[in-house]
């Protein structure tokens, strides 16, 4: 992730979106490391920022990091928990939408890397097929219809 950022930050934006902890020490499925480092469920935004800061320091991350709000709104928008990767094209459509982590993380990271390599090589974003766009528009229309019913 950090390596990809350093390799492609000249042609793409990167943001690490720090969301609620997946295996906090006081969660149902705590990680041993969470107990050792006393990483607990975030009680407030300040604690969330402090834990993100600890992650950035411990992993020596330089990728720009954003913090989700305490309503977990962005996490919910992207169905991201526990971790997930997306690549947004210049036109705002998703070129890569990884499966949920942990198993979906590495394949999506690789897919994003391949997309960026192609983009660098050709200078143009790899296109989306008409079928993919039509299917996406159909989903959007369905979501809009469902939202109107609510």
């Amino acid at each position, binding site marked *: 992730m950090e390596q990809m950022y350093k390799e492609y930050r000249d*042609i*793409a*934006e990167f943001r690490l979106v720090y969301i609620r902890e997946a295996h906090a020490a006081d969660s149902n499925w705590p990680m041993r490391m969470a107990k050792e480092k006393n990483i607990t469920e975030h009680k407030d935004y300040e604690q969330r920022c402090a834990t993100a800061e600890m992650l950035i320091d411990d992993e020596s991350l330089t990728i720009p*990091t954003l913090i989700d709000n305490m309503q977990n709104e962005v996490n919910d928008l992207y169905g991201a928990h526990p971790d997930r990767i997306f690549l947004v094209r210049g036109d*705002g459509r998703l070129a890569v939408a990884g499966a949920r982590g942990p198993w979906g993380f590495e394949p999506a990271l690789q897919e994003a890397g391949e997309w960026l390599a192609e983009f660098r090589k050709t200078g143009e974003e790899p296109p989306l097929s008409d079928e993919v766009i039509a299917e996406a528009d159909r989903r959007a229309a369905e979501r809009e219809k469902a939202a109107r019913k609510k």
Partner: protein
Amino acid sequence: MKSLIAALIATGLVLAANDKPLFAQSETGDSAKQRQDRRQRMLRNREGRMARDDDAPKVGDVAPVFTLKSHDGESETDLAAFAGERPVVLIFGSYT
């Protein structure tokens, strides 16, 4: 003969001692309830995962826009601001 009897008694005692926890694990109501609770928890988690996968944006969808602050509170990112400019890689995650 005495030593043979002693050996048989000792073997019986060892078997009895080993059997007890085995039966206790498999036949008590608590263990069955724990297994049932665990199974229900797993099913709930799986349903939750599937619901989140259904709701997650897919390839071709317009990425949901958002504005969030940086970890140090010094800047903000508005995803919409990158539209038509540069591709954006979003990596969601936490420490654990």
